[in-house]
């Protein structure tokens, strides 16, 4: 019982926060944040307790419990939880970052008229996210999957009085739905071939399934992750989602919600066949590399981070695809920390820019555009320091967590290529290439924002560092981006520690020999490390050259790359939006208009109403024939005949009695004669 209470509190605490703040939030006003912080704080404590329990009692795991939701006789759907090491790690990540974001938002969102509703929405988001983490069955995961989509919709569109946020929110929800369709079909295929929705049940039961069908089912379920984790080709919603408040971007679009796709893929990893996995890897690689290229040409600070997120998620997916599942989860956690930190730092900068522009009564300049920044490091030291730490982490510099996790992934790609040869060389190429580009554009961001001379002196004058409520989360997160947190080992090159040990091994049941995979990764480890060090250094050096020392003319380089159109491709995000618009959106809406036209104007008005028209015509003709022929000619004709005869007969009625008498007499005489004859 105590266990059930402890686990379900991860769901109930944020849900209670949501319910109270949605209905009675107006009464709390600015104390809403206190309530929310309190409840989420409790949740963080709970997660820490759970986590410590995980570390100290490895044999109690996993915890699972299932409650029947409803049953129709043969079909029974149950909801329950399944908590193992991974779950407790993820729960702590979500709780911690959730708490820090709550704290940060108390200052960032201060003065917003819908303050309480913001925290309510954060509550329902954490509720849904925990639901995904705790889910023991794919159906339960799907339910919370969609609820997370709802929370994301509410949060992205939070400032709905503006034009863009609602459109962005719609885009996010609908793009996710596309992925959800695939996920649902995959769930159905698995259910009818294995007999269960339960993840462990499926893992144990797929042995008997047709491998081709299993590949398809696995890929379909993976489609949900493609949507949720913004993989190509469903990545389009994430950059637009930056319309939401920055803490929201930090929480859901960097650290947690988008990670749900990776988590889900991790959970279904045991039954993804090698063919499915290769496609997963390709998707991840394309995403990682493509997004990195686009990030180079972004000017909005949040846009850079958004594409960076997409790229890093690509890494995680690619890792799962090549079998390096530990690396994927490792990177998920490290990325959550440093990406959340990056977003919150950028939020700090944007917050300062906002205040500065407000002081200047300037409503036109974009506070998020890096071209309006520059040289902020002296004015915002804490933000600068924490952002630098996180950037070093994401760039893959030793002593920072990102180096370890990225290194592990790249080792995985190398090992994969070593095993499969051929086209798979593209995977490590994409991985290392993206690593270099990541280092490049992240430092570009740092240099453009914090270094050099301020681009706009007026704005610069009014910049202040953010208050402690906002800086403390930054400091905590940047601290968590250090390498030794995850290895408890000061050796920067040592990748394995308590954390990787905790993730443990996964039993693969669809044809992948995990021993081979893990051996391969182990062997490729050193090579990967050297190449990634090289690549990161290259990236940073080039960035320093371009943006810090300003030794190279950026214009000339862009034009050079543009000879083969590369620069434009990056600038225009590979024209994906335009392509989707012409191939998908426009024709689709045209089709719906046509469908409506066909249905109403043609089918209903012409064909269905035609029956009415025919009936009316027939009835008109029958009325005509009834009247003019039947009534006028036949019936009235009879009376005309009678009238005619009577007019002729009337002439005998002369009115002269003697004529009548004569008639009588004549007839009498004739009668007598005739009778006498007979």
């Amino acid at each position, binding site marked *: 019982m105590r266990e059930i209470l402890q686990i379900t509190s991860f769901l109930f605490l944020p849900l209670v926060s949501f319910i109270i703040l949605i209905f009675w939030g107006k009464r709390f006003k600015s104390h809403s944040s206190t309530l929310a912080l309190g409840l989420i704080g409790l949740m963080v404590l709970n997660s820490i307790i759970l986590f410590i329990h995980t570390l100290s009692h490895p044999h109690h795991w996993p915890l699972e419990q299932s409650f029947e939701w409803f049953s129709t006789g043969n079909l029974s759907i149950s909801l329950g939880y399944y908590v193992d090491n991974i779950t407790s790690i993820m729960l702590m990540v979500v709780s911690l970052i959730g708490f820090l974001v709550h704290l940060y938002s108390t200052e960032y969102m201060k003065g917003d008229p819908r303050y309480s509703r913001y925290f309510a929405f954060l509550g329902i988001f954490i509720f849904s996210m925990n639901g995904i983490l705790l889910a023991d069955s794919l159906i339960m995961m799907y339910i919370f999957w969609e609820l997370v989509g709802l929370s994301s919709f509410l949060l992205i569109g939070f400032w709905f009085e503006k034009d863009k946020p609602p459109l962005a929110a719609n885009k996010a929800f609908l793009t996710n739905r596309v992925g959800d369709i695939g996920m649902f079909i995959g769930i159905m295929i698995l259910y009818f071939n294995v007999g269960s929705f339960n993840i462990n049940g499926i893992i144990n039961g797929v042995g008997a399934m047709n491998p081709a069908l299993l590949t398809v089912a696995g890929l379909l379920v993976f489609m949900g992750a493609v949507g949720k984790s913004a993989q190509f080709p469903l990545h389009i919603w994430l950059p637009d989602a930056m319309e939401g408040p920055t803490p929201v971007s930090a929480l859901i679009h960097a650290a947690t919600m988008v990670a749900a796709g990776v988590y889900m893929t991790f959970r279904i990893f045991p039954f993804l066949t090698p063919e499915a996995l290769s496609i997963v890897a390709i998707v991840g690689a394309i995403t990682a590399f493509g997004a990195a290229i686009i990030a180079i040409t972004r000017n909005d600070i949040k846009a850079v981070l958004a594409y960076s997120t997409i790229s890093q998620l690509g890494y995680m997916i690619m890792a799962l695809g090549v079998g390096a599942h530990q690396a994927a989860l490792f990177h998920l956690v490290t990325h959550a920390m440093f990406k959340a930190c990056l977003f919150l730092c950028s939020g700090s900068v944007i917050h300062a820019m906002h205040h500065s522009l407000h002081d200047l009564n300037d409503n036109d300049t974009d506070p998020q555009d890096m071209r309006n920044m520059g040289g902020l490091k002296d004015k915002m030291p804490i933000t600068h320091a924490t952002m630098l730490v996180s950037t070093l982490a994401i760039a893959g510099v030793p002593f920072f967590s990102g180096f370890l996790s990225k290194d592990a992934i790249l080792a995985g790609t190398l090992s994969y290529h070593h095993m499969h040869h051929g086209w798979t060389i593209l995977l490590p190429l994409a991985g290392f290439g993206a690593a270099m580009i990541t280092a490049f554009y992240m430092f570009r961001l740092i240099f453009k924002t914090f270094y050099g001379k301020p681009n706009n002196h007026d704005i610069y004058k009014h910049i202040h560092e953010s208050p402690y409520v906002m800086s403390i989360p930054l400091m905590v997160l940047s601290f968590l981006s250090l390498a030794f947190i995850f290895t408890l080992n000061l050796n920067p090159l040592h990748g394995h520690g308590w954390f990787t040990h905790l993730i443990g091994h996964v039993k693969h049941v669809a044809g992948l020999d995990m021993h081979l995979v893990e051996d391969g990764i182990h062997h490729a480890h050193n090579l990967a490390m050297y190449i990634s060090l090289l690549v990161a250094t290259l990236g940073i050096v080039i960035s320093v050259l371009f943006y810090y020392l300003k030794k190279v003319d950026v214009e000339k380089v862009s034009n050079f790359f543009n000879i083969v159109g590369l620069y434009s491709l990056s600038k225009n995000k590979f024209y994906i939006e335009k392509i989707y618009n012409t191939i998908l959106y426009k024709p689709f809406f045209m089709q719906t208009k046509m469908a409506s036209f066909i249905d109403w104007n043609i089918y209903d008005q012409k064909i269905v109403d035609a029956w009415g028209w025919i009936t009316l015509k027939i009835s008109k003709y029958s009325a005509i024939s009834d009247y003019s022929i039947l009534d006028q000619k036949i019936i009235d004709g009879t009376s005309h005949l009678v009238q005619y005869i009577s007019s002729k007969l009337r002439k005998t*009625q*002369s*009115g*002269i*009695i*003697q004529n009548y*008498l004569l008639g009588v007499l004549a007839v009498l005489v004739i009668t007598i004669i005739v009778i006498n004859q007979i």
Partner: protein
Amino acid sequence: MDYIQPYLMLSSILFSMGIYAVITRKNAVAILMGIELILNSANINFIAFNRFGNFNTLDGHVFSIFVIVLAAAEAAVALAIIINLFKNIGTVDVDQAREMKG
């Protein structure tokens, strides 16, 4: 006379004269006179047949007295009608009484 034919001839002649009068005379009173002639011819017929018909009873004679009475009554009524007709159309010319003309 020993046989009936002369009486019958007389009554036929009278009957024809009466019919002629009814059919051709314009004056209503003259028509009445014709009617009287018809009635009286019928009377002669009744009496003649009774005399020459081997009857025990005197039905014919009695009947002709009925007819005389009736003729008188009818003449009175008819004349009353003619007076009314005169009052309505101002003449006793039956050709002028053609309200019932079809």
